[in-house]
């Protein structure tokens, strides 16, 4: 087919095993070409799966809020993903992975550079083993994940544009800086803090920013009425279940891709182990949370089970490689129990988190990071606690400042009447289900 042929020139220039053609690369070079393409392809597929998690957060949150606030939460989710991509391309990626001034202060530059030159890759003998653009794609979906965590916690009462303003700050500055400290090779990495795929860098980060927002924002009207905690049931549980399945699937890319290489036997085995452990931890978390809610509340609360699965995923994210599948299941189960207790506790202290994001990603994220000290002999508890402290302090602090400024400038909470009527009509001019009688 013509379409194919039109690529031959290109194709052959770089790779040919047929002696019939001139200027062909050596076998060694060809091997590097193949390995490079395998690792890059694996990276792109992983990134696509993580991008899919954005849909998961959107569905989960849309299912757990009331119908009158559904359109607005969807708008926040699609918009924050887009903003994250733009800000991270504009400046975030360079802050996180550029040459920093020192191990605390990252460097500053703009836009993306060029990809690896073929010669450079060949010269490196395979040390440079995947595309820079593929790496950017994989990294950018991580920052979007961190920001997605925030939207759920502040749902049903925060102004749309104030939220998006914060998204600009978190994805362009707050996240990249702490990311630099760990994955960019900064001081957190030097002191041995271990966070394989981001229980801390991504999930605890998102939860800390969310907590700061919730504290400034206050609870939804009618959530805590003269000392009693009132239930505000989610409006569409199939969406919540769908969202959880999407996140579960996407997580294989999130953790599996974080191995960063698959093109040899050890790496292929490692990625496989990560897939298995990620899956087992989620399964363990779901079962544990479901059983606990049955025993505790007398009913099998689906929303708790879903949070349990996510808790298992967050818990294993800090170290999905070293544990055996059995241990991974237990780590997930602990996460599942913890998340239920945490959700109840946060309600007790009147921290209103409609979807349980702070519990799932924050509390369980911390658990996951601590667990590493037990599942990975090379990691010290001290280093883990330091990392947790640093990430929380940085993200919570800067977020508090950012939220406060936004609050002062444009306000962060909708008016009481708008909250009563639902933010959808007020912010977006639409209803999610205009034909059905909502309460």
């Amino acid at each position, binding site marked *: 087919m013509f379409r194919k042929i039109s690529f031959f020139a290109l194709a052959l220039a770089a790779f040919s095993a047929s002696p019939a053609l001139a200027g062909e690369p050596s076998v060694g070079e060809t091997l590097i070409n193949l390995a490079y393409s395998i690792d890059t392809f694996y990276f792109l597929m992983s990134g696509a799966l993580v991008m899919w998690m954005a849909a998961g957060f959107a569905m989960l949150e849309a299912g757990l809020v009331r119908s009158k606030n559904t359109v607005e939460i969807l708008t926040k989710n699609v918009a924050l993903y887009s903003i994250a991509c733009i800000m991270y391309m504009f400046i975030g990626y360079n802050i996180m992975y550029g040459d920093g001034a020192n191990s605390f202060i990252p460097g500053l530059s703009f836009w993306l550079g060029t990809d690896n030159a073929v010669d450079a890759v060949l010269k490196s003998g395979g040390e440079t083993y995947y595309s820079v653009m593929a790496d950017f794609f994989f990294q950018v979906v991580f920052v979007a994940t961190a920001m997605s965590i925030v939207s759920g916690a502040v749902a049903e009462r925060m102004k749309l544009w104030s939220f998006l303003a914060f998204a600009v700050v978190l994805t362009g500055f707050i996240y990249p800086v702490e990311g630099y400290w760990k994955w960019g090779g900064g001081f957190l990495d030097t002191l041995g803090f271990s966070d394989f795929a981001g229980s801390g860098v991504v999930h605890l980060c998102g939860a800390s920013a969310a907590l700061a927002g919730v504290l400034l924002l206050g609870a939804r009207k009618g959530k805590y009425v003269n000392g009693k905690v009132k*239930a505000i049931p989610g409006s569409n549980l199939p969406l919540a279940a769908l969202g959880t399945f999407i996140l579960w699937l996407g997580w294989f890319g999130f953790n599996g891709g974080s191995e960063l290489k698959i093109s040899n036997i050890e790496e292929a085995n490692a990625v496989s182990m990560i897939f298995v452990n990620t899956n087992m931890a989620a399964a363990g978390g779901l079962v544990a949370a479901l059983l606990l809610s049955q025993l505790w509340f007398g009913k099998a609360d689906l929303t708790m089970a879903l949070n349990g699965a996510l808790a298992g995923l967050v818990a294993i994210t800090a170290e999905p490689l070293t544990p055996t599948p059995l241990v991974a299941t237990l780590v997930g189960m602990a996460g599942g129990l913890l998340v239920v207790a945490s*959700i*109840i506790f946060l309600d007790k202290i009147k921290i209103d988190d409609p979807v349980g994001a702070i519990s799932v990603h924050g509390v369980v994220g911390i658990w996951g990071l601590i667990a590493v000290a037990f599942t990975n002999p090379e990691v010290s508890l001290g280093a883990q606690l330091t990392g947790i402290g640093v990430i929380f302090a940085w993200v919570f602090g800067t977020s508090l400042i950012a939220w406060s400024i936004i609050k002062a400038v444009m306000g962060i909470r909708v008016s009481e009447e708008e909250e009563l009527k639902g933010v959808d009509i007020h912010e977006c001019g639409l209803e999610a289900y205009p034909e059905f009688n909502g309460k």
Partner: protein
Amino acid sequence: MKKIEAIIKPFKLDELKEALNTLGIFGMTVSEVKGFGRQKGHTEVYRGAEYEVDFIPKVKVEIVITEDMTDKVVETIITTVNSGKIGDGKIFVLPIDGVCRVRTGERDKDAI
């Protein structure tokens, strides 16, 4: 003429409809309502927080009939939807000054 309003349990609707048909009554208007009475709702737990499901789904059946049919209809409703269980429902009889069939403009008796 009278208007009968019966608040019944949703799953009894089909039976009632058939029973009324046999009485020769073919017109009625039905709407979904939530009921509250002796039959209290129950408390459920959502994410650890209690909430009362205190309004029970009921169906309201409105039937406009001629005076003379009133007792027959009320009896029929009772016998068909009565299960002896709390929450079976209520029947209200309201006076009506006039009825009109939109299509034909017929009034009162002819319009029913």
